């Protein structure tokens, strides 16, 4: 008799999801344009003449003029920018290396696989360990284990990544000899084996922030009303934890990693230097010591664009996974 067949609001319309997608893509595109511009100005806003930096303080005016020409610095700034953008669009490149003459893109592509593998391994480790620690802390709130896990971020926050690397080398490389002290091993297994220690180092820098906010997130879920509903309904706590708590805290983890990916990449570059891995990080440092501007610009640009794309993907994934965003009109 009291059948309340008030109809259900239409779920996400094609129109609104298309609008959201266009907006997200447009934003990302705008950020990329800004990134390109920032990279272009990078060597122009800093004090000092790049040519002088490359050639040294006491170089001849002719040499400087010719270096200006090589770098395109003798053109008006607008033309320089156009040339930079054109080169980028047609070749995906920021110019040829001043030292070797090879294109920056090729140099970077050559070094990218190791760095990418390291980043993937580190992210995987970071997520796994943080989820585990956060879950242990949240389910044991205010007990000894929780306090121990909560102190952990406080201590590790101030640990420089290279120092952590050094200590790990000292312990696992030099003393225990479980892992190589540096360099990259031969073949797949060798490579993975030699990257474990660096990956742990990078992950280590991410875990404090991840654990801290994940724990808060999980506590919120654990103390939410719907969990009482499920408990009251007699669903086994194992099922509640795996199916409901974990899923509800997984989304924020994903978002957090999207925000932190930039820090993770930065950490990777430094860690490569500590472990002597020939990746993008070591390319950056060798380019810096040789003042190889096009390569430096290329690295900055590719890293930034990678971050923008990953953030976009994360944003899209979480939008897709979260029904709450779609229910809204």
């Amino acid at each position: 008799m009291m059948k309340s067949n008030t109809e259900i609001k239409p779920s996400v319309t094609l129109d609104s999801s298309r609008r959201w997608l266009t907006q997200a893509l447009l934003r990302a595109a705008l950020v990329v344009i800004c990134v390109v511009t920032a990279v272009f100005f990078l060597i122009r806003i800093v004090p000092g003449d790049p040519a002088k930096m490359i050639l040294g303080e006491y170089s001849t005016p002719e040499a400087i003029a010719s270096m200006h020409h090589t770098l395109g610095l003798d053109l008006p700034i607008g033309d320089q920018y156009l040339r930079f953008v054109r080169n980028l669009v047609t070749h995906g490149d920021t110019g040829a290396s001043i030292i070797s003459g090879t294109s920056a893109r090729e140099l970077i592509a050559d070094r990218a696989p190791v760095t990418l593998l390291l980043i993937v391994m580190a992210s995987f480790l970071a997520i796994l360990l943080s989820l585990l620690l956060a879950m242990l802390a949240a389910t044991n709130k205010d007990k000894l284990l929780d306090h121990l896990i909560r102190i952990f971020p406080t201590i590790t926050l101030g640990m420089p990544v290279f120092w952590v690397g050094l200590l790990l080398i000292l312990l696992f490389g030099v003393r225990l000899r479980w892992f190589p002290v540096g360099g990259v091993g031969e073949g797949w297994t060798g490579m993975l084996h030699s990257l474990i220690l660096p990956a742990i180092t990078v992950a280590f820098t991410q875990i404090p922030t991840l654990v801290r906010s994940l724990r808060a997130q999980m506590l919120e879920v654990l103390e939410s009303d719907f969990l009482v509903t499920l408990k009251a309904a007699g669903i086994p706590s194992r099922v509640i934890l795996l199916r409901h708590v974990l899923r509800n805290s997984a989304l924020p983890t994903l978002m957090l990693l999207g925000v932190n990916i930039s820090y993770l990449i930065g950490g990777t570059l430094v860690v490569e230097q500590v472990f002597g891995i020939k990746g993008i990080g070591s390319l950056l440092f060798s380019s810096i010591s040789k003042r190889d501007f096009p390569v430096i610009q290329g690295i900055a640009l590719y890293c930034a664009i990678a971050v923008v794309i990953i953030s976009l993907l994360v944003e899209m994934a979480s939008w897709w996974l979260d029904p709450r965003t779609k229910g809204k009109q």
Partner: protein
Amino acid sequence: MSASPILEVEELSLAAGSKTLVSGVGFSLDRGESLGLVGESGSGKSLTLRAILGLLPRGVEQVGGTIKSEVRAAMIFQDPRKSLDPLCPVVRQVEEVVYYRQQVSRKAARTIALELLEMLGLPDSLKQTDRYPSQLSGGQCQRIVIAIALACKPGILLCDEPTTALDVTVQQQILATITRLQQELDFAMVFVTHNLAIAATLCSKLCVMKQGSIVEHGDALSLLQHPQHPYTQMLIDSVLPLPELEGSASV
């Protein structure tokens, strides 16, 4: 009516640390009977419900008294949206509870879940496409929560201000649904509210709570007509009077 009560609460005391939240609360409930717990915020009425349910919030402990119950209890909460997992489609949530509580096959669980939804007057379109809580209205969510409670086949239904967050017209529909279900399924009910009018209409017995203890209890109608405690009188006064609508003979 059976002779022995199915729920007996005696001298119940709850505390958080050194702070007493509920003290010396006691009442009993027979099969199919309904009891209204009335009071303002901080009166300990919701905590009493959670104690009966056996799921006290973190930090609150039972420090005295006994709760004797022979049947299962299920609960409905104040905010229907928050009492459902936002990332799980609603039919799946009902189904899950049926599966674990009634120990049937997945397929049977789904059939039972759909029957429950039908019984609660939820739109048929849910049978084809499952929806997330955020896509339903507050009233529809509350019906899902009731379905989850019924899936436990409760002997007692605990209601914690189930209509406070809803509009008046929806409130009327939900209360009507609860009344109808109680008549059909013959469960006992403890209904917590701050609105004496709702409590008195729904329940035959009332307990008025203030700051953790019961100040007055008794038969609903006599309590309304001859309140002994000034606090009860105040609660009666707080139901603001409306003039009689003309041309509405039936209630």
